[in-house]
């Protein structure tokens, strides 16, 4: 789910909604340092919303804990959510324009049409 969190809509850049047709659960070695390093980059509210939309059985607190580095449980949950759920097939949808970016074989297609490029 890491990739989908860093993509945004074409015009105003709202976080994209995820519609998943096929989600794969994979096992990835836990790298605490890596998770700590990428957390500042994550749009947390969008991530929580995505976890909710996808109906994943993971619980993320409403707001990120203050001392993230010390919170092992939180880091492990973030690891699971960001790296162990792979959206194989689905769509990323811009909430403002309804524009859909397809995801196929885990690769989001962010190619824009001529008309969309300002």
């Amino acid at each position, binding site marked *: 789910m890491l990739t989908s969190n860093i*993509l945004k809509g074409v015009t105003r850049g709202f976080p994209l909604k995820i519609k998943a047709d096929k989600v794969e659960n994979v096992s990835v070695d836990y790298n605490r340092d890596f998770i700590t390093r990428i957390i500042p980059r994550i749009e947390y509210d969008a991530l929580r919303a995505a976890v909710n939309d996808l109906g994943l059985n993971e619980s993320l607190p409403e707001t990120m804990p203050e001392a993230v580095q010390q919170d092992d449980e939180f880091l492990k949950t973030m690891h699971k959510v960001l790296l162990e759920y792979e959206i194989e097939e689905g769509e990323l949808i811009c909430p403002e324009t309804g524009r859909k970016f397809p995801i196929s074989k885990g690769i989001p297609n962010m*190619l*824009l049409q001529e008309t969309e490029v300002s």
Partner: protein
Amino acid sequence: MKLKELESHLSNVENFSNAKEYLEQYMTTPHLAARMIYTAQTQYDDIESRSLIDLGIGTGMLSIASCLLNADHVFGFDCDLDALGLCQLNIKEFELESSIDLIQADLRRMSLPIDLNRIKADTVIMNPPFGTKPFSTSTENQDELCLSGIDMHFLNYARQLAQHSIYSLHKTSTRDHIYKKAKDWNMKIDVLAVLQFDIPKLEKKRPNRKISTASNAPLKSIEVDFIRFEIKDNADD
């Protein structure tokens, strides 16, 4: 891992079977990729435990080399679905599925539906198309995708996506222009090596002439600079 060992591992990266001329597709050789990434790590500590972005990932050669030298993670971009498919095969071969994430996007566009700020990586690596085909009004639009100067588009994205440094290749003949751009963009620049590059010579299509594909085209030898750019902290000035 030693340089020779890295190069040896990279010989398992599969090449394009139907490289597209108009996208200037060719595999970065294991020899070159190993040296680029090995230098980036041993001389500058820019690979191990770092987050990376690969612009124009192609076969995945540079990203795979980086992961073999323990980069944390790579976001790889390419506009071509076939290249991305090949890249996925290579990623699978090296068991790096959780380390390299792919995105299909066109880097010739001025704006992308991607939050550049959040995707920012420590290091950007790339072997961009050079755009060796000069612009000509007589050729069809869709063939002229890799126009002269396209590597500057890539570099422009690189400088917005890199937290710290960029490793790239550019024609030696454009070096003065590159220096000027680096200055405009407030980047430190170091030409680390000058290489002799053989890229498939892409011919203009003419009637009654056998059209060469990238794989059987005569090779054109050009001088290429291997360059490291460093994003300057405003405080350093």
